[in-house]
């Protein structure tokens, strides 16, 4: 009887993305961009498109696998999966679900994707103007508490209070991301570097978040392909083996209206130990991290909860020098991420994590063995991933 693990059973073998556009600026329909990214990923892998037999996505993506499969003329659909809840917190979970499908033998070549065109379908994260509001929002909307920024700012504020730290760490996360974007030809913020004065002088959105603490809003599509480790060895690119994965959240974290029992958390406390145990490594072994930035404060919490530093030490450890490639102690968001490359709800972070394993990142860290992704933060479920250069 085998251990309950997916360590080393599969690899990410292809990556594909469209051009990234500012919100509502995509010139193409959403579904077309989705197909483009899928085809690009197959081409990158050296896998014929008609060998794709499964799809996994997250964040209520609109592009149903049956529709994609039919459009691409696929001989058979064997896996069609959506992570339930969590928005971008499900990015690594979608990857993990694809890994499980391949490891379980349901499907052989599973695409994990995200595609959105907000000009076509409306602004992501903004509720349509409805005459009624149901559920937990009934207790927050009358108080003007309606945007993700406000909801998450409440949580980060508490973290900063509990640990006496976080403002400098937030700034370092933002500045490192923008620095990395300058070397990335795909980054929306390439050509727009961020200095300290600009960061400090930027307008408050909702305290403690300034403009540069918030992710962008973008259109585009991105996809990766997961296949077995055995097949991966015969394909075009260096495989990024999936060594560990976790998804979910702790007891009571779904309780609404700011009543989660463990409030000032990015929700990784129960996931990080499982991730490291499955991969058989610790935080000191990780060479590079892509950590989902809905807001910089969430990244600070994510990194502390993955054991890279103590919460009280975030301002001392999460510095621009430590977070920047190639030589920082913890190179972070090396493509520019959600803040400065594009907000593709974290799929672009998975792609960058793969590039770091391959050695093809514009901000390459030397000798990457272990490349981590965290997807969330502060939502439920959250998810994470460790990729490796070896099985």
């Amino acid at each position, binding site marked *: 009887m085998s251990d309950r693990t997916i360590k080393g059973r599969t690899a990410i073998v292809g990556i594909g993305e469209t051009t990234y556009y500012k919100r509502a600026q995509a010139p193409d329909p959403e579904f077309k961009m989705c197909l483009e990214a899928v085809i690009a990923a197959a081409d990158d892998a050296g896998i014929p498109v008609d060998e794709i037999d499964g799809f996994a996505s997250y964040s209520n993506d609109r592009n149903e696998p049956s529709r994609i499969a039919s459009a691409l003329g696929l001989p058979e659909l064997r896996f069609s999966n959506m992570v339930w809840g969590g928005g971008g917190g499900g990015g690594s979970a979608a990857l993990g679900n694809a890994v499980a499908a391949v490891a379980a033998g349901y499907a052989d070549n599973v695409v994990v994707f995200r595609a959105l065109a907000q000009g076509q379908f409306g602004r992501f994260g903004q509720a349509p103007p409805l005459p009624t509001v149901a559920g937990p929002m009934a*207790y927050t*909307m009358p108080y003007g508490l309606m945007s993700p920024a406000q909801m998450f700012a*409440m949580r980060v*504020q508490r973290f900063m209070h509990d640990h006496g730290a976080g403002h400098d760490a937030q700034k370092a996360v933002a500045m490192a991301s923008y620095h990395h974007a300058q070397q990335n030809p795909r980054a929306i913020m390439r050509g727009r570097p961020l200095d300290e004065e600009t960061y400090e002088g930027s307008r408050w959105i909702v305290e403690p978040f300034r403009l540069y603490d918030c992710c962008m809003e973008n259109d585009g599509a991105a996809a990766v392909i997961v296949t077995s480790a055995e097949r991966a060895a015969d394909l075009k690119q260096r495989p990024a083996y999936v060594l560990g994965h976790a998804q979910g959240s702790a007891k009571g974290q779904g309780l*609404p*209206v700011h009543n989660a029992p463990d409030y000032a958390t990015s929700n990784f406390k129960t996931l990080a130990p499982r991730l490291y145990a499955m991969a058989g490594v610790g935080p000191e072994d990780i060479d590079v991290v892509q950590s989902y930035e809905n807001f910089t404060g969430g990244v600070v919490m994510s990194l502390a909860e993955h054991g890279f530093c103590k919460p009280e030490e975030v301002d001392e450890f999460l510095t621009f020098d430590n977070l920047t490639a190639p030589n920082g102690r913890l190179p972070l968001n090396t493509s520019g991420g959600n803040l400065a490359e594009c907000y593709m709800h974290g799929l672009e972070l998975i792609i960058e994590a793969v590039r770091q394993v391959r050695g093809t990142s514009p901000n390459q860290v030397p000798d990457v063995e272990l490349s981590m992704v965290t997807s969330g933060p502060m939502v439920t479920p959250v998810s994470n991933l460790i990729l490796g250069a070896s099985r």
Partner: protein
Amino acid sequence: MSTLSVIPQPEGLALQFHHAAIEHGRLHIQRCSSCGRFRHPPRVQCPECFSPEWTFEPTAEHGTVYSYVVSHRSFDPFWVEHLPFVTVAVALDEGPRVIAAMRGVESGDMELGMPVRLTVEPQSDDFTMLWADKA
């Protein structure tokens, strides 16, 4: 005190929550009749012991600021005229946290842990605002 320009119309348990506050002129929250735990927002079943029996109990209308945010932008027609405004998550003495609108304190003077007193301010027969003042 300013009145909301658009007054919400709650339904179901939310409506009962507001009615309990308006009828008694005091904030009430749900309490499980089996295990005694207070909870918010109201729900049909206790998340700890799963009992469907509950009551709305009066609170002391007192708590501390568990967290707060200062909003500098809003889509809401009422709040856009009160920028920047402070929204608080108050940890009630009874345990649960409620969202309320802070008044009378400059945003720069806000501190977590600040004791606050809550006031119910009905906007209609079916909806009440909750205001927080420094205690």
